């Protein structure tokens, strides 16, 4: 994208969201320059994310997995933003960005392992930081990591993902301020899904928009229709480009992606307590999947046959991931002593030995 196109895309009023498709999938903006096959892959990844999510919720319901935060409704923003990255870029997710992580290289089985209570799910080797559960705390990591890359002269952009609620935390503020002062190559991707558990966006902050908060840090904030994967792709791609040192004057960008979570905050949450079914229905009409599907069908990139093939592929991929995750042998109890320090101090070695001996002696039953 040339400089002026990027500027017109990013440097607009913070309350003028970028769109490419309307709610029915008709083109209302510039379609990004992605090949046909890439566009169909994007569609496939949306379907994969949706299927994965449903399966994860059902695993939790069946007691085969712990608490899980679903992403249904938000796949468009997740997949669209991930498509905008180079492999060498790094993603700093919250707990909900399963699809971002997967597209950026984390195996679905590893994502499941993590939510099955196994730290090894975070040893995935992809350029994705381990999930941060404490809200907003990953944002300074993204800034520091990108800053370090820039100091080293490496061409690495970092993308921090977080929610609307996260903008209220001090860490959001401190991190964006650092990014502005040090011009770190960072994109701040705020998934404004309208709710922070039960607190609606309007009660989270009196700011007119979240995008507008960027001006407090001296850089650009832009809104995008987060239910429109092509729009998110375009905006994040432009922001990534602006963050790249290659461009001469790297600058961070805050992207406010307007989204909605269709489901519960987590499997432990009951959203009917605090929000209206009618609101959910309104947002469901903007579901990114049928929208992109309509566009792809209308433009001849997708037909019933390909959709069916995608469905089959997605089903198999998810089934394989669940199987792989469930086949993983539980780590031995003493694994909790690994990796606390690079080398275990003697006290820890002694504690480990005590647990090992006890487990040896009493087995699983001793710990029920």
């Amino acid at each position, binding site marked *: 994208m040339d400089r002026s196109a990027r500027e017109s895309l990013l440097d607009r009023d913070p309350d003028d969201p970028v769109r490419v498709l309307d709610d029915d999938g008709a083109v209302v903006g510039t379609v990004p320059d992605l090949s046909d096959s890439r566009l169909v892959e994007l569609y496939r990844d949306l379907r994969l994310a949706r299927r994965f999510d449903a399966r994860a919720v059902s695993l939790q319901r069946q007691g085969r997995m*712990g*608490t899980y935060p679903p992403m249904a409704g938000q796949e468009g923003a997740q997949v669209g933003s991930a498509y905008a990255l180079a492999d060498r870029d790094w993603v700093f997710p919250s707990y909900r960005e399963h699809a971002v992580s997967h597209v950026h290289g984390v195996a679905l089985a590893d994502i499941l392992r993590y939510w099955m*209570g196994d730290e090894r799910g975070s040893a995935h080797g992809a350029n994705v930081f381990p999930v941060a559960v404490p809200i907003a705390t990953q944002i300074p990591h993204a800034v520091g990591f990108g800053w370090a890359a820039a100091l080293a002269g490496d061409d690495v952009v970092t993308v921090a993902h977080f929610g609307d609620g996260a903008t209220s935390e001090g860490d959001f503020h401190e991190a964006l301020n650092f990014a502005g002062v040090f011009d770190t190559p960072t994109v701040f991707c705020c998934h404004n899904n309208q709710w*922070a558990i039960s607190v609606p966006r309007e009660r989270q902050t009196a700011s007119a928009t979240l995008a507008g908060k960027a001006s407090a840090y001296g850089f650009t904030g832009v809104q995008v229709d987060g239910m429109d994967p092509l729009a998110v792709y375009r905006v994040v791609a432009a922001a990534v480009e602006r963050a790249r040192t290659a461009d001469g004057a790297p600058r961070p960008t805050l992207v406010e992606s307007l989204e909605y979570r269709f489901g519960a905050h987590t499997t*432990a*949450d009951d959203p009917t*307590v*605090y929000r209206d079914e009618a609101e959910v229905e309104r947002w469901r009409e903007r579901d990114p999947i049928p929208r992109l599907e309509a566009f792809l069908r209308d433009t001849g990139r997708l037909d019933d046959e390909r959709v069916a093939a995608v469905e089959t592929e997605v089903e198999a991929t998810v089934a394989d991931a669940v199987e792989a995750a469930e086949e993983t042998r539980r780590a031995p109890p003493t694994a909790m002593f690994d990796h606390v320090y690079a080398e275990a101090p003697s006290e820890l070695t002694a504690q480990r030995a005590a647990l090992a001996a006890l487990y040896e002696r009493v087995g699983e039953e001793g710990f029920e």
Partner: protein
Amino acid sequence: MSGAAPATSLTLVQAVRDGLAGELARDDDVVILGEDVAANGGVFRATDGLLDEFGPDRVVDTPLAESGIVGASVGMAAYGLRPVPEIQFSGFLYPGFDQLVSHAARLRTRSRGAVTAPVTLRAPYGGGIRAPEHHSESKEAFYAHEPGLTVVVPSTPRDAKGLLASAVRSPDPVVFLEPKRIYRAFREDVPDEAYTVPIGEATVRREGADVSVITYGAMTQPALDAAEALADDGVDTEVVDLRTLAPLDRETLVASFEKTGRAVVVHEAPRTAGVGAEVVAALQEAALLYQEAPVERVTGYDVPVPLYALEQFYLPNALRVREAVERVVSYR
């Protein structure tokens, strides 16, 4: 709390809710604030229905900002309200740690009593519910080490309600840690009317002559279970529930130790520099002459609480308590 007083069988979290409702009704200055406490009634339902009952000026959903919650509570308390902020999980208290230790704990001393911060900071804490990372911490020692703070951990529904009432009425800031593992583990008859259980007093949950198990919170039940099992083997175990960690009721635990001469301290927090270390130090300072065996500590290990697949191996249980007691009583 006469035997005839009307009572309802409640879980611990219901008792907390009941206690909060009682304090809100008793004193107009009591205000509840936090993340998801109003419309949602709290992620554990500890504030369920309170918004409807007391309105949006008394039960307030805040933005997602722990330092803001604690800091605003300090200001509210200084004005004369009795704020009862909830931190959704104790593992998320740290962004508000500075406001807690640098201000809530210090305002009284800083101003020679002119300005005070009677804040009751509630947080579910501890492991055992197969929750995600940062949802299972036990870092009560941080708070117990900070002069000016009172730290309370209830272990029964009845205590929860009464201690919470004392906390809300206390002129000092109280960190009120609720062991979420036993939020719904069992029920107890809890008096309907308001009452207080005094802060700063440990209680003997089970009398015994041979050995003292000193514990609190969710570890009280495994300690009692171990004591039952030990009784079958002829070991008469006393179980002391600290209830308040700061100020520590040294008298009660020393008295128990003077009787038994042997002790095991149990908590799920990491061992090193935990509250158990203070208990051991207190016992040997006051009662070395009575001591017949090293005091053992049965605790969480010095590792971050593992994700839930291994959590059961991290948390102390009745078996570990029992084996420690056996070592301690057989020490010669």
